[in-house]
């Protein structure tokens, strides 16, 4: 009877999906699910949603909800993090302030000034949580879903050394999309994917030993395919491999695609022809922020529906790895997932200790990362430009050194392509001030400096 704790359970859509997955998994159906959030309203909504699944299925699972994180963590076997420190208010600042300086972020949750500040807000909470876990649930496995994945996991490893794995669904969704493009049933494709989170590459994509890359090369010439993923296809055309995170994301991890508002509107947006990708607003700046605001409203509607017992119960598990990992650990039935883990020589041409996304074996012994033999040099080189930013962000978050924040943003490939160094300095100082209430680690420094 494992105890599964969700920190940030007020993320209603995610909580409902993950708990539905857990409750569809025989080995986990008698779990205790402990939901924790700092927002009492959303916490009670989350509890209602999960309890409704348990009741309607007639399961033995126990659902608890608490505002007290220590209570939620105590004796947990699995701790899943899904919180968003600062919520949409902070996220809006991540997009709006840089935009005034000409940094046009579409998503802004991974790299760039937005990604850096999201990490700075998140890392102190994660470290605190790990301290609680050391005390109250020393053997628990941490499954982190909070972005920016790489910087967050790197900080957890550097500061606490706790066993953890960072999880994202970009590998699963991308592989499914590619299978669709080449007309092969998803169950039949075989792939090897590695790199860093949101910028991992499909090194192999095949069926029955037959390489499917030639078919992908053909598919990307089709207009409807190109119109769906123009940025990722451009990256493949020039670097040779298909990348894991969507075109909106991919466009901001390199300096090539969105160097000005004009370039975004006139060159980038028109490339997107597919309605399916409306969620990031055809690559427009702030597209994902607007999507999140809409999604919050939808989640409230959904909550109302399920409260009235009108919502349909899912009958299949989602792509998320969470429930599969817990199942493999509980049953000792091995599976493979792509997880974010510390690079201990797994990818030899990326720095030691950085967070890499590689295939991991999961069984009764937990999450065991596997090694990647050969990783193409040009892909490692692209990753390194991102890893530089992550490394400085982690250093800033752990030491409270504001200079490291400046350096992180100065080395961001997109920011560096559009701002001068003095502009970056002003932008970072403005962000530090605007977000001060979520950045306790810098308070001493800011006071000494008399504020930015």
């Amino acid at each position, binding site marked *: 009877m494992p105890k599964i704790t969700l920190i940030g359970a007020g993320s209603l859509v995610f909580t409902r999906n993950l708990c539905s997955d857990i409750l569809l998994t025989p080995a986990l159906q008698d779990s205790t699910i402990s939901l924790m959030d700092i927002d009492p309203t959303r916490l009670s909504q989350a509890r209602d949603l999960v309890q409704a699944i348990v009741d309607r299925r007639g399961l033995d699972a126990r659902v608890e909800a608490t505002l007290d994180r220590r209570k939620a963590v105590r004796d947990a076997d699995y701790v899943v993090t899904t919180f968003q420190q600062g919520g949409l208010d902070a996220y809006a600042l991540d997009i709006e302030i840089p935009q005034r300086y000409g940094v046009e972020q579409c998503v802004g949750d991974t790299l760039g000034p937005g990604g850096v500040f999201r990490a700075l807000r998140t890392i102190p909470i994660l470290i605190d949580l790990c301290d609680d876990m050391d005390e109250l649930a020393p053997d628990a496995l941490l499954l982190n879903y909070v972005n920016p994945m790489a910087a967050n996991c790197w900080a957890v490893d550097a500061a606490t050394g706790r066993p953890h794995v960072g999880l994202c669904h970009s590998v699963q969704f991308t592989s499914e999309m590619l299978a669709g493009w080449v007309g092969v049933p998803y169950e039949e494709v075989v792939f090897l994917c590695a790199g860093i989170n949101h910028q991992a590459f499909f090194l192999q994509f095949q069926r029955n030993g037959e390489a499917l890359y030639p078919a992908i090369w053909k598919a990307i010439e089709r207009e409807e395919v190109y119109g769906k993923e123009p940025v990722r296809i451009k990256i493949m055309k020039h670097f040779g491999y298909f990348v894991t995170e969507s075109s909106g994301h991919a466009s901001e991890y390199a300096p090539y695609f969105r160097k000005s508002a004009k370039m975004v509107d006139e060159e980038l947006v028109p490339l997107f022809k597919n309605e399916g990708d409306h969620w990031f607003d055809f690559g427009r700046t702030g597209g994902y922020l607007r999507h999140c605001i809409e999604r919050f409203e939808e989640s409230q509607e959904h909550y109302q529906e399920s409260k009235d017992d009108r919502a349909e119960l899912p009958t299949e598990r989602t792509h998320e790895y969470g429930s599969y990992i817990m199942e493999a650990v509980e049953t000792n039935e091995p599976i493979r997932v792509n997880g974010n883990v510390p690079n201990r020589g797994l990818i030899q041409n990326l720095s030691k200790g950085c967070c890499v996304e590689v295939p991991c074996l999961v069984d009764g*012994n937990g999450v065991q990362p596997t090694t990647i033999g050969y990783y193409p040099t040009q892909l490692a080189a692209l990753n390194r430009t991102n890893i530089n930013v992550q490394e400085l962000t982690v250093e800033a978050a752990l030491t409270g050194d504001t200079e490291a924040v400046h350096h992180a943003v100065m080395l961001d490939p997109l920011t560096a392509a559009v701002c001068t160094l003095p502009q970056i300095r002003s932008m970072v100082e403005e962000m530090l001030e605007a977000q001060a209430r979520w950045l306790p680690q810098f308070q001493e420094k800011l006071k000494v400096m008399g504020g930015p």
Partner: protein
Amino acid sequence: MTRIAFIGAGSVEFTKHLLTDIFKFSDLRGATISLHDINPERLETAGMMARWTSDKLGAGAKVEEHLERRAALDSADFVIIMVQIGMHEATLLDFEIPRKYGLKQTIADSMGIGGIFRGLRTIPFVLDLARDMRELCPRALLLNYTNPMSMLMEALYTAHPEVRSVGLCHSVPYTAREIASYIGVPHEELLFECAGINHIAWMTRLEAGGEDAYPRLFEAMEDPKIYARDKVRFELMRHFGYFVTESSEHNAEYTPYFLRDDGLIERFDVPVDEYIRRSERNLERYAETRRKLLDGGSFPLERSVEYGSLIIHSMVTGRSRTIYGNVENKALIGNLPQGCCVEVPVLADETGLRPCYVGDLPPQLAATCTPHTTVQNLTVRAALEGKREHVYHAAMLDRHASSVLSLDQIAALVDELIDAHDEALPEGIRERSRIGPSGVAENPSSV
């Protein structure tokens, strides 16, 4: 259709185990089994056994027999090596010459003097095979079952990194089963984690029913009947804190503590010369099996614990499995040398084999492995570079040999073994070097 080559298929008993495992998977039905041996009679026997097994299990396999190795390898998907270079006669030399010097051995197939010489005569064979594979089946996976495991694997991935290879041994699953029987739990319920080098891998985690099983194993050791079944390994556990793989008879010759003198041998029931007896039994058993096949006899068809069929099944169907494999240490075990051959958990699925990161072993366990990785590395260098000095040094750095013999005695022993094996060894090794006894060794008969 999947094509599996068996190199050294005349090890009929072992061929039958692997084939039974393979044929029991319906997903592998209709596979082509391509058998090779240099001994025509053994090859014919293997062919009879393969057909009998396939018929009995309804596997519909296509069985081919090839005296010519290249034909057997052509377009194979998997190549399984199970050869014994020099056979029984070479094994006898590996035992008898060291014995004259006062160096007793039990198995002599993986480490120590016997392991070094078995390595030296087998490495040229596996390298030659790898060159053929590169040409005839470049995408195939080589599954090596031949000892000395670590030396052969290190030679393979050093000289032919382009050939995909893994070394397989049953010592990890057998050890887990033995532990389960000592503590009285069904083996399916024992959760274990194991890492180290082949034959000296350590159970770093043992759990039954969600609880640490080590206290129960320590308790079991106090039962004289259980202790008597595995004295050497229990002694190692008592003093080093962990249970080691393989067996008491093997481990007796991997350390200096059990085989040095008759008092120790008697106290720990060490079966000196054990492998000679096994090797003789294997010859008898082979003759018996052949007779039985010719008479239309029947054989048991139990699934074995060998990983071979599981790997093939995982790679063909994509089912993820945890197996233990011997692979190059590329930052897998932090406190063993980079490049040495380690035995670690490996994820097997349709993308092939991916070794898992282990981290550091407890330091005292790493220290039991590193002397042997040194000997292995020197032996591999001796074979690859054709340098006789490396052979002396390998032997001089072996834990057991150095605890019994002087430097001069070891040098003389090496010379005598090189002369005895002669043409079976790589050419450079047969040339005298400036290091060596040249008359300074004590007379063996006076030892």
